[in-house]
């Protein structure tokens, strides 16, 4: 049987995502892709992949996966979660896997990921990637129209997600000492394209007031609660295009920030757009998070984007070798509590 990860439990919303599906928005097909491309890149680089390789995007509650391959190397980055590796033997041994480190799992091992905290999404990359065909140039999943990923849907219990490699490569494990994931104090926006549909009072509220991410948020849009932004010329426009991070304001005056699965066109005025350098941090926000906005000009946004690109390029150079023996050796675990970034947290099962 081909190498795969089998889903014992699927988690709440686990999908395959890569950098997104470009070139089809004129046919109404959303871009999709990772909500947090910085964490996606980090997970992939640690696993030994190109940064935009499709990985599992996990929201709210993680899955439990059984390794059905000779071995597999994985790495996790993003929101915090308890990540455990259960190894069957005479007694089940449970080890805890730290974030931002690659790890090698053997056939029969079970990877168990708990509830997420401190962020909306967590990425699990597998060395070599997952063996699913790209649809329209991307493996990203767009659930609403059943495009990409595994049969165009979220993973479910019993799924076998095929791996491109049948075993992990013979190499040491990698780690990152840190990954800056904290949100900026204020999300930078560029006003428009329809800021002229709002009065000065609404613009002032947008840039001075504080908003809160509501639970009615998903991969398509983040609904904010806060002061209502009053339209000056009505709230229906002749539909035009929608950019990533745009703040659409429907009739109730409460902005919706449009994210990865955003519709390609829309008929509500868009008061401002979050700059691309701040989109990964935006995608990480969880319901209840406070959001403030600060307007900047486009040249400043372009400079910030170059800065983010430089930081992401530097990730590959910041990878460190995990000192010591790479393979998990039960004997070594007995003499040292810390091997390869794994902590023998719970001891013998």
């Amino acid at each position, binding site marked *: 049987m081909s190498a795969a990860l089998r889903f014992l439990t699927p988690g709440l919303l686990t999908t395959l995502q890569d950098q997104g599906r470009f070139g089809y928005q004129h*046919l109404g097909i959303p871009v999709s892709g990772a909500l947090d491309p910085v964490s996606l890149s980090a997970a992939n680089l640690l696993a030994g992949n190109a940064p935009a390789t499709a990985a599992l995007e996990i929201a709210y509650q993680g899955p439990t996966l059984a390794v059905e391959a000779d071995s597999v190397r994985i790495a996790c980055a993003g929101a915090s979660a308890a990540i455990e590796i259960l190894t069957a033997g005479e007694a089940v041994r449970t080890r805890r896997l730290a974030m931002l480190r690659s790890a090698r799992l053997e056939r029969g091992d079970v990877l168990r990921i708990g509830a997420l905290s401190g962020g909306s999404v967590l990425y699990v990359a597998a060395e070599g990637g997952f063996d699913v065909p790209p649809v329209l140039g991307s493996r990203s999943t767009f659930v609403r129209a059943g495009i990409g990923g595994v049969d165009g849907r979220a993973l479910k219990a019993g799924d076998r997600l095929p791996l491109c490699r049948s075993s992990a490569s013979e190499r040491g494990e990698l780690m990152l000492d840190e990954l800056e994931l904290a949100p900026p104090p204020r999300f930078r926006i*560029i006003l428009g394209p329809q800021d002229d549909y709002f009065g000065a009072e609404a613009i002032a509220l947008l840039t001075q007031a504080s908003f809160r991410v509501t639970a009615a948020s998903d991969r398509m849009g983040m609904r904010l609660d806060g002061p209502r932004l009053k339209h000056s010329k009505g709230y229906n426009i*002749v*539909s035009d295009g929608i950019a990533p991070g745009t703040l659409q304001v429907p009739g109730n005056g409460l902005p919706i920030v449009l994210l990865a699965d955003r519709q390609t066109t829309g008929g509500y005025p868009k008061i401002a757009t979050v700059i*691309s350098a701040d989109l990964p941090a935006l995608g990480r926000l969880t319901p209840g998070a406070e959001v403030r906005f600060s307007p900047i000009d486009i040249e400043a946004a372009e400079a910030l984007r170059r800065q983010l690109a430089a930081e992401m390029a530097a990730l590959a150079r910041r990878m460190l070798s995990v000192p010591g023996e790479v393979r998990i050796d039960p004997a070594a675990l007995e003499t040292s509590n810390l091997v390869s970034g794994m902590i023998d947290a719970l001891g013998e099962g």
Partner: protein
Amino acid sequence: LTAADHIPHRPRYLAAGDTALVVEFGDAVDPELSALVLSLARRIEQAAIVGVVETVPTFRSLMVHYDPLQIANAELKRRIEPLLANLETSASKGRHWRLPVCYDASVGLDLADVAQRTGLSVAQVVERHSGTPFQVYMVGFLPGFAYLGGLPGELELPRRANPRLKVEAGSIAIAMAMTVIYSIESPGGWNILGRTPVKLWDLNRPQAALIGAGDQITFVPVSLREYERLALQARAGELSVTPGLAPA
């Protein structure tokens, strides 16, 4: 004020963040605006500007998605500027589709309501909606979801007060001065006149989305029985329609 007065060929450039530029020709649903937008879209495609990722034509503007690491907003505008000269102001001859549509009350759920609200008979509604080509202004909202202009004034109505939670794929519906085709099942508030058995969206085809902006569509009425026969063919993947050249 004539129609031409509010159709400036000199568009406005509006920033939609640092990865998308809106080139806006106006703010109406209008055949001339649509022609300008589609004309610019073709030119930008031909110009193959490095850093332009894709363009999305809409009724009245073109959204240019770009990679700010490859081209800055200011440079993109400089590159678009020479492409604005002598844009086409009437629709160029695109593909022409003849789509079978069943205008039966069982699938045209709002047919009777539309007839009542417009003061026409059901037969008159069908007659005014079929037989003449409509222009596809844009595809958006959902994969393959097409917006068509050119609806006769007698059929202009607002959207339904209570949108439906579920509209079947293939539904042909009207509101304002437009017709839309629901490519996949979705919620929707447009007035449904009928349904086509042709799959507007099918990932099993090389070209998943059948229709593109700039195409023309003529709806050809078919009986419920014929619709059901064609729908069976479509489900088996055996119904293919091919476009002809748009009529003069």
